[in-house]
């Protein structure tokens, strides 16, 4: 029997030791960028307590349907080039809290990995909650037979965030997960009124960490109110705001991922 992940060419995880640094944002924008390069992308949201992905694509009110091979992922539009799975679709009310201990979370994650009928995808992006605990251990274990491409680690520039992401690097090393690179998010803010750049969350920590750890540095993504607004409204930032401050960096991250995979196949 063909596994539900048999048609998925590349699996990559988006991790961070720290909360609130923009994992879901990076997952979303990466998916949109890859779509714009003509790829078919799925996002598996394994943040069970704080599932952000559905809303970022404006499909938070959608339901999940079953088919013969399992769960049908939610397509974000008619195009069917981006599909999603998240516990967010399974909640009765959006405010419902998922108050589960580890074992129950682990069980659902195993199902999410095995039972979603993704079909053929170029990329499956796995968005995770912060940390190095149940969700992460279970996800990596469940994905191991499918040989994930690796992980993108997201940090903000300041030391308090980098401090946690160092631990996430150790997690990757210990679990044999290749680090595709580090993204330094929320890296500087250019005032839209006067163009003065302020490093609200400091600068450079992500790049230094990549150098120190010997992993690729994928780039700095600046704070961009238009990006935040897009995510709020579930819009396609990559399509609609190519002149916005965060666009070049986000496009570059996707390009590096694409370059990495084409190198692999050649």
């Amino acid at each position, binding site marked *: 029997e063909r596994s539900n992940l048999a048609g998925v060419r590349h699996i990559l995880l988006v991790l961070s030791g720290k909360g609130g640094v923009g994992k879901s944002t990076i997952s979303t924008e990466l998916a949109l960028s890859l779509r714009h390069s003509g790829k078919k992308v799925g996002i598996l949201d394994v943040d069970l*307590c704080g599932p952000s992905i559905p809303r970022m694509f404006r499909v938070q009110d959608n339901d999940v349907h079953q088919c013969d091979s399992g769960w049908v992922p939610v397509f974000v539009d008619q195009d069917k080039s981006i599909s999603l799975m998240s516990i967010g679709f399974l909640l009765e009310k959006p405010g419902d809290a998922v108050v589960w201990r580890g074992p129950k979370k682990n069980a659902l994650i195993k199902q999410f990995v095995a039972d979603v009928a993704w079909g053929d995808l170029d990329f499956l992006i796995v968005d995770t909650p912060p940390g190095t*605990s149940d969700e992460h251990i279970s996800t990596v274990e469940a994905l191991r037979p499918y040989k994930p491409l690796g992980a993108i680690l997201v940090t903000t520039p300041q030391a308090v965030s980098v401090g946690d992401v160092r631990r996430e690097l*150790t997690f990757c090393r210990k679990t044999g997960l290749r680090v595709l690179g580090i993204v330094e998010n929320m890296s500087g803010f250019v005032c839209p009124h006067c163009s003065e750049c302020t490093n609200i969350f400091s600068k450079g920590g992500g790049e230094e960490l990549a150098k120190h750890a010997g992993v690729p540095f994928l780039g700095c993504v600046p704070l961009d*109110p238009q990006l935040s607004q897009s995510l709020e409204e579930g819009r396609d930032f990559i399509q609609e705001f190519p002149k916005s401050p965060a666009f070049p960096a986000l496009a570059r991250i996707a390009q590096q991922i694409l370059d990495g995979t084409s190198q692999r196949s050649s």
Partner: protein
Amino acid sequence: QVALLDIDICGPSIPKMMGLEGEQASESSTVHQSGSGWSPVYVEENLGVMSVGFLLSSPDDAVIWRGPKKNGLIKQFLRDVDWGEIDYLIVDTPPGTSDEHLSIVQYLSAAHVDGAVIITTPQEVSLQDVRKEINFCRKVKLPIIGVVENMSGFICPKCKNESQIFPPTTGGAEKMCQNLSVSLLGKVPLDPQIGKSCDKGQSFLSEAPASPATSSYRNIIQRIQEYCDQHHFHEEKII
């Protein structure tokens, strides 16, 4: 007399923010086994801290534990740390509504917990999760002292115009608090000095006394103290 307990086992940030993380590996803080259990690490005479960070020998050490092991350590922190007589025990938690949160509420159930302060940023992506946290508190009967809206606006140091970097597209914490009948304790604006102070392990309130963020923090802290005082008073009345 204040105690700060960091139960973010995977991402312990408190030691660094308190200036208790040594720059050189040899100076890393150690937890001392005193006669009656573990001793907190003191920032000042009246501020003691405990975190898994103090048990790790390298900044690269990862705590890759499933729920039950995390719960075990949290229990130890509560049972075996010799806090002494304290006025306030503040417990910093990781994001979520899972093992750490259930366990801390469970283990503290015999003690009197004044309540929870819930932090959000202004945008709906954050509020969406915070509603779940409020829901969690109600489920486990944890009183909610109130909500703090963090990263609430940024004033450019050059032109003084305000930008809403994290836009309150659905009315921010204010609207959410109204809808859910919880107090909004205050809003804290973005200030680059906050991150800098935390990274250096210095007190932002001391380093930037004139910052609008400082007055926001102080107002919020005052409201929390008032809440605790009122409830303590009611408790005493009942007795």
